[in-house]
């Protein structure tokens, strides 16, 4: 049984009288523990594909199975649980809540989790993750006190807080310098190898894509395996 399976998934946006197929009849099978990169031009549907897998936007047609369950047949609360317990998100933009400290931003997903909540060493885990991304000294800082790259690393650490089965990373190293970018890639690879976390990473950086075991190219909403 594959961990994730997309069958003929289409996502259509209405723009006035025009219909735009952001993802067009996509079929994809992903096994547990894979490290996949998705490349393609801007507007080719990469972010939408990631969002569909993460359950934050509904497909117009087709099914998306996670461990054989159609995630969009789930009730709203169960779909939220899927996002909280199974998926770790790294967004394309700065996604930290400005009124929370770095520590609180990391603890945020645990506030929504019924099973991986607080009191079970969440604070220690947050500290450990911040150490791994090189921000151990920024625990009590607010996002406005961090650089763009530091904010990005906090968001990377947050994606691992609830022990996700899949990490969906949308250009996760976009704001990082070359050295930090490499450090983060090493971190991803370690998490993938040692914890069996599945990685699906959107990137424009072909060098990074080449480091992944499987590459997918998207063109006008369609998937083309390399």
């Amino acid at each position, binding site marked *: 049984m594959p961990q994730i399976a997309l069958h003929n998934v289409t996502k259509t946006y209405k723009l006035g009288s025009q219909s735009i197929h952001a993802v067009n009849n996509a079929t994809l099978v992903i096994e547990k523990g894979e490290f996949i990169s998705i490349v393609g031009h801007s507007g080719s549907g990469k972010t939408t594909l990631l969002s569909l897998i993460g359950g*934050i936007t509904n497909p117009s047609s087709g099914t998306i199975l996670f461990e054989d369950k159609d995630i969009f047949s789930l009730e709203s*609360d169960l779909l939220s649980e899927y996002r909280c317990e199974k998926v770790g*998100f790294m967004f394309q933009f700065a996604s930290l*809540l400005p009124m*929370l400290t770095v520590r609180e931003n990391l603890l*945020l997903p645990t506030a*929504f989790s019924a099973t991986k909540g607080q009191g079970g060493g969440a604070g220690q885990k947050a*500290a450990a993750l911040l150490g791994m991304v090189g921000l151990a000294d920024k625990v009590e800082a607010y996002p406005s006190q961090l650089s763009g790259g530091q904010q990005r690393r906090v968001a990377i650490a947050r994606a691992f807080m609830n022990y996700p089965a899949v990490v969906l990373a949308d250009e996760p190293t976009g704001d990082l310098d070359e050295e930090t970018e490499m450090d983060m890639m090493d971190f991803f690879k370690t998490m993938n190898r040692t914890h069996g976390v599945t990685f699906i990473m959107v990137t424009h950086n072909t060098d990074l894509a080449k480091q992944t075991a499987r590459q997918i190219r998207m063109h006008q909403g369609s998937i083309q395996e390399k």
Partner: protein
Amino acid sequence: MSDRFTLISIALRNLLRRPLRTIILVAALSLMVAALVFALSFVMRVNASIQLTSERLGADLLIVPAGSRGAAEDILVENRARSFSMDRSFIDKIRKVDGIDKVSYQTYLVTLTGMCCSVPESMVVAFNQETDFIVTPWLKNKLGRKLQRGEAIVGSESAYNISLGLVNVEGKLFGNVFRMVGVLDKTGSGLDTAVFISDDNINDIIQNSKADIKRDHISVIFAKIKKGANAYTIMSEIENNIIEVDVVMRKDIGKSLLNTLGDISKIFYLTMVLATALSLFLASAGCASLLNERKREVGIMRALGAKEKHILRLFLFEVLALGTVGSIIGIMAGTMLSLVLAKSFSILKNLPVELGMGSRTIIAAAGLLFGTGICALGALSPIRRLKKLEPLFVIKQE
């Protein structure tokens, strides 16, 4: 590193993030709640005063000279000094009416400072100690004996006004020296502001002063009716047979005051309805703007696994915190207003009843319910809209 982190802490941080907006929202709500608390205090105090006067009167019917009903209520409910009179012969006529059990009477005189009397302007009530059932229960309790000629006992408020506080001092009333033999306990009625003397003294007063009362005149007759008798029938019979008098039933005491206050109350109620509508609109608009600017945050939280109920709770915490703080400030301001400003309202100034802790608690609870309820109601619709939005749609909109 601490593990403690709750939705409440996010809500509180959000409120502190925009202190000016938070202060404006709290201030607007405080004003609404203060207006409600003031209006409720006003209406409840008037109603309580009328009810208490009626309960403590001890008579079923009040018979006054025709046209003097309002003046009688001024004395009984509002503690205003008034003088009016009718012929004493009406006492016997009333006593003979079918269904009347007991009859007593009082004569009201108004002192004039410096002209006749050594006390500030107040009511002097002359009552018949043989038939009285209005003052005597209070007198027995305090003095334990009847008043002698030349003796007076004062109501608790009069004692304060006259600066008596003490007994066995002398005061001049209508050219006669009276020994003040005691101070009545607070009754919470018109009795509190009067000076009481036995009606044996009336002839001396008429003889020695220019008191505005004729010999053999009285001001009011109090009647108790027999058990099972119909008060309406008796009232009709008296008014039909003795056209020189007006009859007021116990339950109707204060009606003319209520009619006077009716328009004021209507204005208060109308103001409250408008204030409620306005505050609902304000709360909705405030919450809508508050939520709109945080759409992306909601989208991020939803993407990180927040359920609809988490979003609902988060924003409800926020608006309820606003509502609670605004209500508490409003309750305190409204209560202060009702205590301080009420002294400027001549109607309220003379009312015998001050609101007790119980009534104040009820008003405060109503204020809190109003303040928090308005916030919750105003926020509900924007919150519902937001929590239903697709996370990606919300995130991409920004």
